[in-house]
């Protein structure tokens, strides 16, 4: 019975992964297929679609724009996320739970509502359609991820660590710089990488606010509307690979699966 339960568990997990990954694998396979139409049997290997992708100025421009958005978004959300997480960790203040709720709210809002809201707000302050509009929207979306990751790391910090630093003549500002930030360093890097991935992949809100400044996902949709081309498989594979790479690096830095270090105490953790 137990053996069956184990077997079933493995099978179910495998099925889930196949279900999630099959479309991506299909896209990957067909991106190298010589035939114009995604159909079996495969007709031969080609890198033409990748060549087409990296020579299309519109696509290159979209990639450049996505990077121009992703890097500042990642930096800004990590800095703001750290501030918010530290604030939540260190201080007790009136309305703290409301503050935390508001901080973590954006991912729960349907993307279309968020996009529409952003569009109407940003057009009112006359930056809708600018690259800055995408940047602002993406910070809003990515910030909760940054805050959650950094807050998790702070929760592992021994309360005595900051006090020990004050006790050794470090002012609160010096303590923040010499103790808290180094302690959170890995989660800061992880947060940077993952928020970059969030921005790079985000479609719905970018579609509303980007105007002519299309990011890669928006460019992909526009591309699809015009034609069905295997180039789309190549773009998809590139986007997926870069995102998965960012997330994997982020997870490696955040120490998922590693023993946590909460502070060097008297007994080994």
């Amino acid at each position, binding site marked *: 019975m137990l053996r069956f339960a184990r077997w079933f568990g493995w099978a179910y997990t495998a099925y889930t992964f196949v279900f999630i990954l099959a479309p991506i694998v299909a896209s990957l396979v067909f991106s190298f297929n010589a035939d114009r139409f995604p159909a079996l049997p495969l007709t031969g290997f080609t890198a033409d679609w990748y060549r087409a992708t990296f020579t299309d100025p519109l696509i290159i421009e979209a990639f450049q724009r996505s990077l121009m958005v992703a890097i500042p978004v990642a930096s800004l959300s990590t800095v703001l996320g750290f501030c918010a997480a530290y604030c939540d960790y260190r201080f007790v203040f009136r309305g703290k739970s409301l503050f935390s709720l508001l901080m973590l709210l954006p991912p729960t809002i349907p993307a279309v509502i968020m996009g529409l809201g952003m569009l109407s707000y940003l057009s009112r302050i006359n930056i809708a359609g600018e690259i800055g509009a995408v940047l602002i929207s993406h910070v809003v979306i990515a910030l909760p991820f940054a805050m959650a990751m950094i807050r998790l790391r702070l929760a592992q910090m*021994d309360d*005595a*660590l900051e*006090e*020990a*630093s*004050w*006790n*050794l*003549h*470090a*002012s*609160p500002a*010096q303590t923040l710089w*010499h*103790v808290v930030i*180094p*302690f959170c*360093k890995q989660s800061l890097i992880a947060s940077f990488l993952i928020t970059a991935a969030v921005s790079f992949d985000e479609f719905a809100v970018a579609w509303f606010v980007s105007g002519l400044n299309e990011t890669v996902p928006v460019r992909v949709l526009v591309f699809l509307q015009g034609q069905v081309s295997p180039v789309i498989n190549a773009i998809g594979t590139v986007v997926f690979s870069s995102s998965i790479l960012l997330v994997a690096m982020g997870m490696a830095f955040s120490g998922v699966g590693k023993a946590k*270090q*909460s*502070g*060097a*105490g*008297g*007994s*080994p953790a």
Partner: protein
Amino acid sequence: MTEALVEIDGVSKRFGDYTAVTETSFGIREGEFLAIMGSSGCGKTTMLRMLAGLEEPSTGEIRLEGRSQKGLPPWRRELPLVWQSLALFPFLSVLDNVGFGLKMRGVNKAERERRSLAWLQKLELGEFASSNVMQLSGGQRQRVALARALVTEPKVLLLDEPLSALDAHLSVRMQALLRSLQRELGITFVYVTHSQTEAFSMADRVVIMSRGKVEQIASPQSVYRHPANRFVAEFIGNVTILRGSVAEVGDQSIRVNTATGSMTVSRGGCAASHGAPADFYINADQIAIGSAPQHENHVTARFLSHKFIGNMVTLFLEVPGIEDDLKVILPERTYDCLGLQPGDSVVASWPSAAAHCFSGAKLSAGA
């Protein structure tokens, strides 16, 4: 008495409705090893945190060398603390952990490293200077924490139960190290602990606290032999407390009538008057056991049970008319020769010098 290095003057601490420390005053002398002892929640750690500036007293003030520390944040005080959790910085090397305090004081890198290394060598950690603190053993981390606190050569070092995470063997070795370090450096140590062994083996003076109040401040010997009150006596646990009323007052001793008969108790410093209720205690290690009385005070008792504590044995005797068991501590050899079985009837006897009134108690009829 010499001028106190640290003066705690009318200090109390409240957290909302909870009073952690009630108004307390005492001085800490230069160069002494002072242990603050008590069970958890007695206010000993709060007292230490107030010294370090991590808590601000609700009333009163703390003075270091006559300078009030009132309103001085922890980062402006010269009172380094060794944490129970050690609180070493896991992202820094051993050397950088030790040098942290110097860095924050703006000491240049070369000087910082020279001084940190000197301390590491002194504590036999020189070879670990570039290691990560996470790679060290418990005892080694302990010494890194000590070096980190001592590197700035403070006048006073605060220690918050630093040995509680170590095993018994290592703890004994660290106690010896702390004691010799303190003697050698002449630094004042303020050591908070719940362990009687640690406090008694290292301290010059012991402060016993209970529920936010200081119960007694004295040398370990006098706390052991002359507990100030019932609480201290029960906390140390090496005596039996009896209750009676004063029958006769002499120069050196008083006679007390108890439920098991009349006994002579050495008077010590207490003022006694005829007829007053009197609590007194008998030191467990000064009671003799036999079939006949060997000293002037004696009771017939029933042997209940015993407990080994190394080379000594604690016996528990039932005495008719008194509530608590009479505690007797005998060398293991002596106990062995008696060949007692539970239920045996024995005579316990003790000289009047083994029984004392609580020092500072006033045994007058109206009290």
